[in-house]
């Protein structure tokens, strides 16, 4: 099956999934919009972490910057949501590029810690310069109608459809990007930096570019989150957001895009159900689920069918 055909089928599957959610769980549109936004965010992380092997626990830095950029852009330049998304992408990419100059030199624990540090510094700066960001109160704004026609409605129908459209765009873009020679270089870097260097790839600059692209996609997710909730608070820079995204990605399986979609869906659904059934002890469920997956299917839920097949053959 050709790559284009697979992508087309993937898009159809995503649309079908989104439609099932839309008609089947119409009361939970706000939650499902959150899931879709998180999917975009985790996809952007998959591009950085799954494809290029850049381990990070600070992906929220780009999400948060994208969110603030979209909000500030809406209040001071134009309230057009599409332009706001672009602003978020540019801001997310810019922060990734700037921090990437230092981050891409490190690896392992050092890289994890540096990525956390960048997010924490942004968190503190956003708190300190409350004149621009609203500080602890947050920054609320009113996004304009999408394409000048579709107003965000109170029930969240437009927000959901708008988010799904952006998810599809990001998905297609990443499918193309990961199959391109540039994407193959990313996988090569993940597998062996030394060999890539030996065949003449400027590894550092490639990684910097990949991190910047990944940051731009994360910025899109942040901007979308800001627009659909009409509010940006300091929590966009939370460590829990970065760690949660990594959790969802590894849960689903890295380096194949679908793992990001599946992991996000499963994690957020279990989280939602567990925390509504037992608001005090839901962490037991999440912790147990995470451990079971790590010990039984270390490569993530996407590897489950292959694993089951192998067990049956034995």
């Amino acid at each position, binding site marked *: 099956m050709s790559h284009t055909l697979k992508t087309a089928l993937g898009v159809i599957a995503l649309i079908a999934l989104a439609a099932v959610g839309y008609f089947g769980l119409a009361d939970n549109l706000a939650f499902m919009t959150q899931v879709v936004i998180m999917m975009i965010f985790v996809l952007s992380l998959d591009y950085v*972490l799954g494809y290029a092997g850049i*381990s990070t*626990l600070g992906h929220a830095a780009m999400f948060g910057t994208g969110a603030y950029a979209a909000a500030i852009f809406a209040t001071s330049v134009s309230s057009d949501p599409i332009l706001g998304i672009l602003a978020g992408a540019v801001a997310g990419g810019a922060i990734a590029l700037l921090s990437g100059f*230092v981050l891409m*030199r*490190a*690896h*392992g*624990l*050092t890289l*994890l*810690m*540096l990525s*956390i*540090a*960048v997010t*924490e*510094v942004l968190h*503190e*700066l956003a*708190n*300190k310069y409350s004149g621009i960001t609203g500080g602890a109160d947050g920054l609320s704004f009113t996004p304009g109608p999408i394409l000048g026609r579709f107003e965000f409605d109170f029930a969240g129908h437009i927000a959901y459809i708008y988010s799904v459209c952006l998810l599809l765009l990001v998905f297609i873009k990443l499918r193309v990007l990961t199959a391109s020679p540039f994407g193959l270089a990313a996988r090569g870097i993940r597998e062996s930096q030394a060999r890539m260097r030996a065949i003449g790839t400027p590894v550092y600059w490639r990684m910097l570019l990949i991190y910047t692209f990944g940051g731009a996609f994360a910025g899109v997710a942040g901007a979308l989150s800001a627009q659909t909730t009409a509010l940006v608070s300091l929590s966009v820079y939370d*460590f*829990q957001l970065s*760690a949660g995204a*990594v*959790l969802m990605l*590894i*849960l689903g399986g*890295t380096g194949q895009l679908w793992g990001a979609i599946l992991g996000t869906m499963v994690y957020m659904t279990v989280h939602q159900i567990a925390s509504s059934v037992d608001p*005090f*002890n*839901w*962490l*037991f469920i*999440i*912790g*147990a*689920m*995470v*451990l079971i*997956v*790590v*010990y039984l299917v*270390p490569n993530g839920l996407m590897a489950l069918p292959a694993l089951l097949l192998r067990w049956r053959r034995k």
Partner: protein
Amino acid sequence: MSTLFSIVIDGVAYGMVLFTISVGLSVTMGLMRIVNLAHGGFALLGGAFTHWAMTGLGLPFLAAAPLAIAMVMLLSLPMERLLYRPIYKMGELQQVLATIGITFLIIASVNWWLGSTLQSIQLPAFMSGAVNLGLRTLPTQRVYVIIAGLLVICGLYILIERTRFGIKLRAAVDFPGTAACLGIDTSKIFLITFALGAGLAALGGILGAEILPIEAYYPLRYMVLFLTVVAVGGMGSITGSFLAALGLGILDTATRYLLPDFGTVFFYFAMILVLGIRPNGLLGKSLS
């Protein structure tokens, strides 16, 4: 002058707490080459057990604290064998996932057992209050924390440099393969070191309860803090952890006193600066 004095005393005390909690993490991470995000859980358990032994069993602090540390060490043995052993050979990301899962389970357990309120630890009379040095007075608790921290580093120095176990431990950290070939039971060394690290974390959790309050979400709240000490000091280096903990403790305390508006900006800037210049930390060895 008096501000400077307070900064130094509070900063050093804070640094000692950070060191006591993080040193075990640093050694186990250097020894087993794993990313462990659950270490703060042992500090939480130490504090929670102490709280329980004092309020539930009515024990005095000096009996409750050793009991709590012993309980944490005992608990850490099966945890190492059952939960950590399988992940040593896994990739970095699986380790992140697994140890976050363990953290969640610890948080959920403490939350279920003691609730999500603050678990206060009532210090005995001789440790609370203030001590008069003639020139000025300072909180007695800080003095005890600093003394305890110094005892810990002296004890560790003797253990690592002067005992048979220390020789084996150093061999296992530097060349695990060769050490195993020479007949050193590295898996036993792992286990003992892990339990020791857990016990020290528990001690740090108890001593630092006034600075880092004990509550269910403690391991998640301070996870980054402990990892920072390890990364800045250099994985596996005890002296590195000590320098990093002391430096970061004083820096963080100084900015809280002098530039409270900026929060933890300088703390993280210092980390970026150190790791930008020395990617393996102050005294860390290159892993590759």
